[in-house]
């Protein structure tokens, strides 16, 4: 069953057609990679899914519910979390506080007037946040300020934030951009180890990452999907080679 159904989505910035009639179905529980040359519209598509950009045309359904004209925080409450290209965390807070926020968001919804709630009622949630942190291997940094973590650990923390309110769909915008080889390997391992029920959409330039994670790949070029298939099918696809290397090379 398709958990995410993108239907004829188009979006232009002035004269630039960033997305043209994009059709995409993401199957539940799969890892779906979006690849394509720079400026193909991959990040734009992710921004449409998180409510940051409103397309001119088309519809997006997540688990049978429309996603367009919905606020970013409501989209997250529906079960879609996004991992940014540069880890987006709360730098002046401790790692534990960082992860407690989504845990509260899962319990209380997008707004709750529990402004006098004491520690006792918060304790089970804080303990859950601690478990999440341990699961991602940050247990030694529980009370470290998030801003002082290493880049790799910041990425882990961001993943912990995203996973703490149990999303069903995880959007990853170049999770290994700018990472050293061993950090990339670690991230691949981390993503592989995630709960299999979580559907993942990953935008990535590093083909090593794409081919070791993806069940299915869609190739975007100039705002259009030009090819779709399993990693093996995509590897030899003439249109893909053309989009990446230019016509002369074919």
């Amino acid at each position, binding site marked *: 069953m398709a958990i995410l159904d993108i239907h004829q989505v188009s979006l232009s910035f002035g004269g630039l057609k960033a997305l043209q009639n994009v059709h995409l179905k993401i199957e539940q529980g799969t890892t779906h990679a979006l690849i394509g040359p720079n400026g193909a519209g991959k990040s734009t598509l992710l921004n449409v899914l*998180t409510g940051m950009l409103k397309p001119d045309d088309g519809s997006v359904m997540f688990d049978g519910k429309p996603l367009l004209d919905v*606020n*970013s*925080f*409501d989209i*997250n*409450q529906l079960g879609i*979390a*996004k991992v940014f290209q540069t880890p*987006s*965390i*709360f*730098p*002046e*807070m401790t790692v534990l*506080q960082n992860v*407690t*926020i*989504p845990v*509260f*968001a*899962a319990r*209380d*919804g*997008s*707004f*709750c*007037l*529990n*402004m*006098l*709630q*004491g*520690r006792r009622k*918060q304790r089970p949630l804080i303990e859950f946040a601690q478990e999440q942190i341990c699961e991602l291997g940050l247990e030694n940094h529980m009370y470290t300020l998030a801003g002082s973590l290493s880049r790799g650990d910041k990425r882990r923390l961001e993943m912990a*934030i*995203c996973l703490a*309110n149990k999303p069903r769909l995880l959007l990853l915008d170049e999770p290994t951009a700018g990472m050293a080889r061993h950090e990339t390997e670690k991230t691949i391992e981390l993503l592989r180890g995630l709960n299999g029920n979580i559907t993942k959409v990953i935008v990535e330039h590093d083909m090593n990452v794409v081919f070791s994670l993806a069940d299915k790949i869609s190739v975007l070029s100039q705002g259009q999907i030009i090819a779709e298939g399993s990693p093996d099918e995509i590897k030899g696809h003439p249109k893909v080679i053309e989009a990446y290397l230019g016509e002369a090379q074919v």
Partner: protein
Amino acid sequence: MNQQASFWQHNRMVLMFAAVALTMPLWFPFIGGYSGLDTKIMIFCIFLVGFDILLGFTGYLSFGHAAFFGISAYVTGIMLKGYSDNILPAMFVAVIAATLVAVVIGLLTLKRTGIYFSILTLAFAEMFDSMAMAMLQEWTGGENGLTGLPTPMLFDLKMQGATVFYFSAFMAIGLFYVAKRIERSPVGLMMKAIKCNQTRLEYTGINARKYKLLAFIISAVYAAIAGSLMVVYEPFVGHEFLGWHQSGEVVIMSVIGGVGTLVGPMIGAGFMLYFENVLSVNLGEQWLLVLGLIFMAVVVFMPGGFMEAVERLKKRIFTTIDGE
């Protein structure tokens, strides 16, 4: 045992503040303070602790909080004069009125961030100031201020001297406790997250706008309580209560004391009022100049205000103890 220990740990600051506040009439005269000034300090502690919920937690710098302080003061005055000299209905109506205004201003100004937010709040406060001076002159007394108020009463108790002081001090202690509770609550965490990374917060399923509005309203309620108490303390309302000067003073007190620490801004308030009213006599006409220098020194060398100095001192003491 454990629970007792955590009660002490969580409320250490509140208990310390209570001890300092309630004994103030005993020690304040020895450092040159006069009775009445201590009451004013308590009232400003309320204003500042509320202001820190907005500025310290969410990072939104309002230059218009005098509006809520002033509106509440005027409404209190008008109620005392026209309805009853009992302060309870007057304070109640005043705080409600100022809160309603805060909801409207908050909804409009919080659409913007940074300097635009500050300027919008300043503009609204100035609007109310000019309204009090002209349009509503009949009610507010315009340039002369609202005068001829009866002695405020708490049922049969005359609100004068020490009574007003203890009334204000207990209010300040209670409201400081509430602020500390808010800081420890999930709401406090969300508010602080707004200052850190609003985008991430929205992408984590939190409606940041509502939390900002909540912080704005809470701080306005604190300002309104303070404004109302000012009239109980001194039955007179001047239009300067509403002015930008008042708003600016609150910001300076916060910065000197230490933004975001709750207790720091209260220390800042105490220091500023003490400086303005007591030390200024010794320093003569140059007192404002000295105050300016102190402000600059704090901003340049201790951006965390007095509380940063306290933290540094603590660290130094503890490291020397550990070193030995």
